[in-house]
């Protein structure tokens, strides 16, 4: 299948701080890419550049064949994005918020209705549908953000910490959802939970201090540790390399 996301020597600096340095990778349809790295490694910054929220200092991002700088609206149409912290309009009810997203994503008629019903059911937010978002718990807020991202059934999903703040059962549900969607979509998720990588991702990337340090399957990542432990492998990669540089 075609490459859904192509990133070439992407860099971003904020003044003196180099948040992302020369990162390149591709994501194909059918892949779930786990984006790993310590806090402040540049994961969110990279995701913001893929979705067109931040402009890269140098390098290119192509989504579905469209350059994100030249054709931002096409990119935004084909991408579903859950930003860090799942921001939303707090004063709106969940239902009004999802209707607003459906409006702006140009979902109409019967597709609109079936998509709304489907998403509300799969994400399991039926019982808070008439509550205003600011009154929801962290877990529900995250799920509303997730519902917003998948509502238009996008080919490409970019989820910044989709399971953060969820309880173990909810985490399990979200992972199953991601696995179910994985077949025909290209998905990038960032996470701090390493077992998640093994559970849902077909590939893992580790970045630290803005640099790409590892790109391979979860199996290959585990093989980096003598004990066969993914946490250990992560520490090996992120601490060793930062000492070298």
């Amino acid at each position: 299948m075609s490459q859904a996301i192509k990133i070439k020597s992407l860099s971003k600096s904020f003044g003196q701080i180099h948040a992302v340095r020369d990162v390149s990778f591709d994501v194909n349809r059918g892949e779930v890419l786990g984006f790993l790295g310590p806090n402040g490694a540049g994961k969110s910054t990279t995701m913001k550049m893929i979705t067109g929220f931040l402009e890269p200092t140098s390098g290119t991002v192509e989504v579905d064949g469209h350059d994100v700088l030249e054709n931002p609206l096409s990119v935004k149409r084909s991408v579903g994005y859950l930003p860090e912290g799942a921001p939303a309009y707090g004063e709106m009810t969940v239902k009004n918020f999802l209707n607003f997203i459906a409006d702006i994503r140009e979902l109409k008629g019967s597709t609109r209705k079936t998509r709304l019903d489907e998403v509300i059911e799969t994400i399991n937010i039926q019982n808070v549908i008439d509550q205003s978002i600011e009154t929801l718990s962290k877990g529900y807020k995250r799920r509303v953000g997730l519902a917003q991202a998948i509502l238009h059934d996008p080919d490409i999903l970019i989820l910044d910490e989709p399971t953060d703040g969820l309880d173990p059962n909810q985490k399990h549900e979200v992972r199953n959802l991601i696995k179910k969607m994985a077949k025909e979509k290209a998905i990038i998720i960032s996470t701090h939970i390493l077992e998640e990588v093994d559970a849902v991702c077909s590939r893992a990337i580790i970045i630290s201090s803005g640099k790409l340090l590892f790109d391979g399957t979860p199996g290959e990542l585990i093989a980096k540790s003598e004990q066969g432990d993914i946490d250990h492998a992560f520490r090996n990669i992120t601490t060793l390399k930062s000492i070298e540089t």
Partner: protein
Amino acid sequence: MNGLLSIYKREFTSYFVTPVAYVFIVIFLFMTGVFTFYLGAFYESNQADLEPFFRFHPWLYLFLIPAISMRLWSDERKSGSIELLMTLPVSITDAVVAKYLAAWSFTAIALILTFPMWITVNYLGEPDNAVILASYIGSLIMAGGFLAIGSCISALTKSQVISFVISVVICFMFILSGFPMVLDLFESWAPQAVVDAVASFSFLTHFTSIKKGVIDIRDVIYFAALITFWLYVNVVIIENKKAD
């Protein structure tokens, strides 16, 4: 276009789900009443017109319009929802115009709700209702000018308080530039053309004819140009510092 309409709808309805709209409308109506009857000496003037009512609109707008506009973009920045908005398939221009139009429509509603004033003057005498209608339209256009300034300023900061204060100051300068005390400052040294230019920037200069019921095309062009300019700057600010 679709994006513009969706955002407009969302913004406009959001005024009415929080107490903001109701507080604003009540205060606006109360203040217009106070100004018209006490400061404007509506009864004492013994004239069947709404001049004492419209006379104070620039001063009311000076504080009340920044109170509406201060949250337009500051709030998006503060809550982080700007990241959501800017990654939805909608152009920045559409987003800026949609938010602006929603705020303007809200102002229009507050203005329409002053209709008891119109009923009162019609009950007491026989005013020229065409003049009153023209004044209403002029007042709404002027409110649009204040709003464009406020919207642009709110794009600069996360803080609604800063947004409010700076908007008030800039709006105040736009009102003051028609005052003799400001013009005197220029008259002593600057050529007449400069003095006229400064005076022509004043909301008051342009509102004076409007409140008499004369909608001069030059006044309309002035406000249209002013609104376009500030909204254009608004777009440029968002474009360049979405994520800051």
